[in-house]
Structure formats: C-alpha cells, structure tokens
C-alpha cells in the first residue's frame, strides 16, 4: 500500500521492491555451483546465500536464498534476476554501481541495471544501506573464494 503520508517510505519501499520481497527470484537450487558464498549481517542476523553457475564465461544461473528484511531479500532477488546472462566483468560493474549509488557517488558508468534503480531510495536510510548491499558483497566474496560447493 503506497501512502501519501509517508513519502520517504514510498521511496524506500517502491512497489518493485515489495514485489521482489513477496516473490523472490533465484530460489531454485542449482545442480552445479561454480561460485558460492554465504553472507551474514552480524548486526541484525540477516543471512544470504549466493550460488553461481558459469557457462561460456557467462553467468548461466544464479541461486539466492536468505532470511532478512524486505530490502535485503529484494536486493538478492534483483541480483538473481539481472546477473543472469552477464559476464563476470559486467556483473562486477553492476555491483560497483550499487555501492556508488549508496554512497551518493557518480553511478553513470552503468546503464543496464534493471530493477536495481528501485533500491536508490535506500541511500536516504543510512542504517539500511547494509541490508541492500549484503547480497552484493556476498556475491563479490563468492567470486573471490572460487568455492565449488554443491547445493542440493
């Protein structure tokens, strides 16, 4: 329910965010996982798992799963949605885009960010920025870890 009395909130909880929260993408477990990491936010206990399947240098499938607030769940869902089909380089650039956005820095270097723009309102709520970034920092951890873990 979008309300006129809470303009700040409407910016934080855009309808797209709420839709991703209600029906998150990327919940299908992968048969083969090339990159995997688990992230937690020790301040609030939010948890996220990210798994990537690579084919021909592109991200073929993304798995995300997590327990957390609408912002972290939606951010993970958008991640699963938009990273599919991207090269790892493109994916890193998108992750960088979100970090710059949250820090009010220039983010013009990235156009193809899909629903990620909907998270822009989060930057006005400093304590919630970590929620939005959790899936993305976990994604970056996964790339660094090169873990091969089977998720059944």
């Amino acid at each position, binding site marked *: *329910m979008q*309300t006129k009395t*809470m303009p*700040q*909130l409407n910016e*934080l*909880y855009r309808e797209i965010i*709420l839709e991703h*929260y*209600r*029906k998150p993408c990327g919940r299908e477990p992968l048969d083969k996982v090339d990159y995997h990491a688990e992230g937690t936010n020790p*301040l*609030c*206990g*939010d*948890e996220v798992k990210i798994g990537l399947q690579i084919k021909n240098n592109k991200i073929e499938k993304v798995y995300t799963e997590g*327990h*957390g*607030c*609408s*912002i972290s*769940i939606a951010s993970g869902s958008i991640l699963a949605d938009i990273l599919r089909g991207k090269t790892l380089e493109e994916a890193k650039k998108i992750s960088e885009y979100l970090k710059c956005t949250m820090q009010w820095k220039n983010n013009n270097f990235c156009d193809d960010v899909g629903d990620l723009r909907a998270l822009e309102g989060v930057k006005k*709520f400093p304590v*919630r920025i970590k*929620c939005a970034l959790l899936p993305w920092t976990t994604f970056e951890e996964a790339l660094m870890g090169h873990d091969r873990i089977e998720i059944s």
Partner: protein
Amino acid sequence: MFDVEKIRKDFPILERKIWDDKPLVYLDNAATTQKPKAVIESLVNYYENYNANIHRGVHKLAEEATSVYELVRDKVKNLVSCKDNSEVIFTRNTTESINLLAHSLGESLNEGDEILLTEMEHHSNIIPWYLLRNRKKINIRFVPITDQYELDYEKLEKLVTKKTKIISVTHKSNVLGVINDIGRISTGTSGCRPLLIVDAAQSVPHMKINFADLGCDFLVFSSHKMCGPTGVGVLVGKKESLEKIPPFLGGGEMVRKVTFDNFTSNDVPWKFEAGTPNIADVIAFGTAIEYLEKIGLENIHKYEIELTKYALEKLSGFNFLKIYNSRGVGIITFSNPVVHPHDIATIVDQEGVAVRAGHHCAQPLMSRLGVLATTRASFYFYNTKKEIDIFIDALQKAFDYFEVGACKELKQERVDLVSVQKKDK
C-alpha cells in the same frame, strides 16, 4: 503513584521532535535509558568545579572529587542493600563486570568443572565464559526455557552437580522481560554450593533489589540503563568472595606495593579498579541513583507492570503476532511471518517511535525461539499509555504498508533452528 507528566519534564530529550514534527516516543529502554537534567548537570558540575584525579592528590580538588566518588559506593550499597561499601566495585559496564568475574573466578577452575548458564542469556553472559573455556578445559551447560518463556527450574536443579562451580544467570531477560526467581535457584542448588552470579542489568533499574535476599554471590549491572551515564558498570560481591579472587586488570590504584620483583594487591574494592576510573560518570551515576530513589523503585515496578499490561492488551489486537512474553515486565518482544523487524522499526521510526529490531545480543535465545530477529519495545517510568497508543498506530501503519493478510503466500523457509539447537546438546 507518581505524576508521569511532571517526571517527563525532568528529561530534556523528551521535548525533542523526530522528523520535524513527531514527538519522540522512546521505547528502547532495555538498550539504554534517557537521562534526567540532574544527571547531566552533575556531570557538568564535576568538570566545572572539582575535576581532579582521585585517591592520590593531597589538594582540595582531589579531596572533593575523591569524597564524592567514594560516596557513590554508599549510594549503591543502599540501593541494593549489600553489607559494606567495599563490596561495590565500579567497572565500565555489566559486560566488563562479567568479564572480570570470568577471568578472576576462572583462575581456580579445573579441567572438567562446569559452568551453568541459561538459554535466555545476553551475549555478555555467554562470551566471557566461552573465552574462559578456551583457556581452561571446562564445560558450559545451558538451562532450557519452557514453552511459556520461563526458566525451567526443575531442569536447572537436575543440571547442577558437584562439578558445577558457577551458575551465571540473568535476573530479567532483555528479550522476554521475565524476572527469574533467584531465591529459588540459590536455595535449590545450595547442596552443591556453586557460586551464583546474577546479571541484573535489566532488573536493578526497574525494581527494588536486595542483594542479601537474592542469595547470590555476585550481582552486576550498568549505570546507563538506569538514568545514569554510559561507561559505568557495577559489580557487587560478598567481601569474602572478592578477597579470595585475584585482580582482573593491573595498574595504578589496584596495588599496595610494587617492587622490581612483584606487587601486592590493594584492598577490595580498589583491588579491582586499576587506572583512573570514570570519575565524572560515577559521580553522575550517584545522582541518577538519588533520582530513582526519589521516585521509588517499587513505584517504578508497579507502573511498568501497568504499562506492560496495557501494551499487551493493545498488541493482542494483531492476531498474527507471536508475542514472546507470558509474565514479563517492561519488555515486549514479538515477531510475525510477513513484516521483518527491520522494516517495522524503519516504519515506526517515521512516526517518531524508537524500538529495537534484531537479535538483541541474544542469538542463542533467538535460535531457541526459532527466529533470526524480533521487534522489541521496552518501557521505563517516563513512558505513557498515550505513547503506547502512538506505537500501536505506527505498528498498524507498518502492517498496512506490507498488506499483512494480503500476502499470505510469503512464507520464509528456514531451517528448524529449534531442533538444530537441541541436537547440539
């Protein structure tokens, strides 16, 4: 009882507006409480008029600062009814008091000894014991809670054996609000004579405590949760117990004599107060104690029971809430399957309402309750029923916002943490 509106005028912060026009509704008192003007003035008065280091100086300022600082020990003694002011030790906070005990009591523990904690402990009453376990080969056991969110006293008594050297238990849970029956624990376990430590961070600020009646050996609490400044904790211990254990931190003040070979410790309480203490904040803490005693801790307790009852009644209107409170006072923690506590806290904050969202530094308890995070509202004597109404309206907005009821399909799958926790034991 007392005039809440008059009391509220003592707290400058309660005048402030949040987001330009919303009055502050501060319901995060279990985290820290607000400070009355008298306490703030007491800090300023010390720095403006008699700032000096204590105990060592011969000059007038040092003498004044020392006597006011030491007088606060008397105030604490009277507050908790211990025998002597030498039984009162100032630390930085409750956490440091427990670390002191874990360190100093831990010295005499042997391999195979056991420490008994409960499932409702704050991290500050878990981690110091884990650290000790890493140094000594001891075992830690947790007393379970019942499905009514109360301590399982029968299981507790069964868990106590000759091996149990220490029981460290919270007096009042910072999540469940339940007040544990310390007398029952001390009499029920007296056969095996373990030392009993009581974490009273959530109880001393809200009710009249009598150290001797509780029957414990050590009592710990913090100034900042009872209208005093941050940076001051208290450890109250029986003199004979304090004399037996070694010091925690070394440095100035805690020694009697130092040579090129060794040192001899000072008497209690100074043996445990190494270095320049937090003089200003201890002094202002004394003012906070005076302030609370003027209002009356019995009055505060009664009023909080009334506020809690009122809030629980109002909350029962949201039938989709799980409320983790059956007999708790002053603290109400709840969860629901749709709106995450963080989202609730953000939305009610827009209405000026400050509540806590998260695990409340009690992750093991959260896993026992089968949740990762909850929302907590906690009251103090300056809160009003009107403020609870504002909180309830703000909550309603949060649930409307997320269309609770309309999005029943949202079911967060999660590992059954309750059963995982049980398997660990």
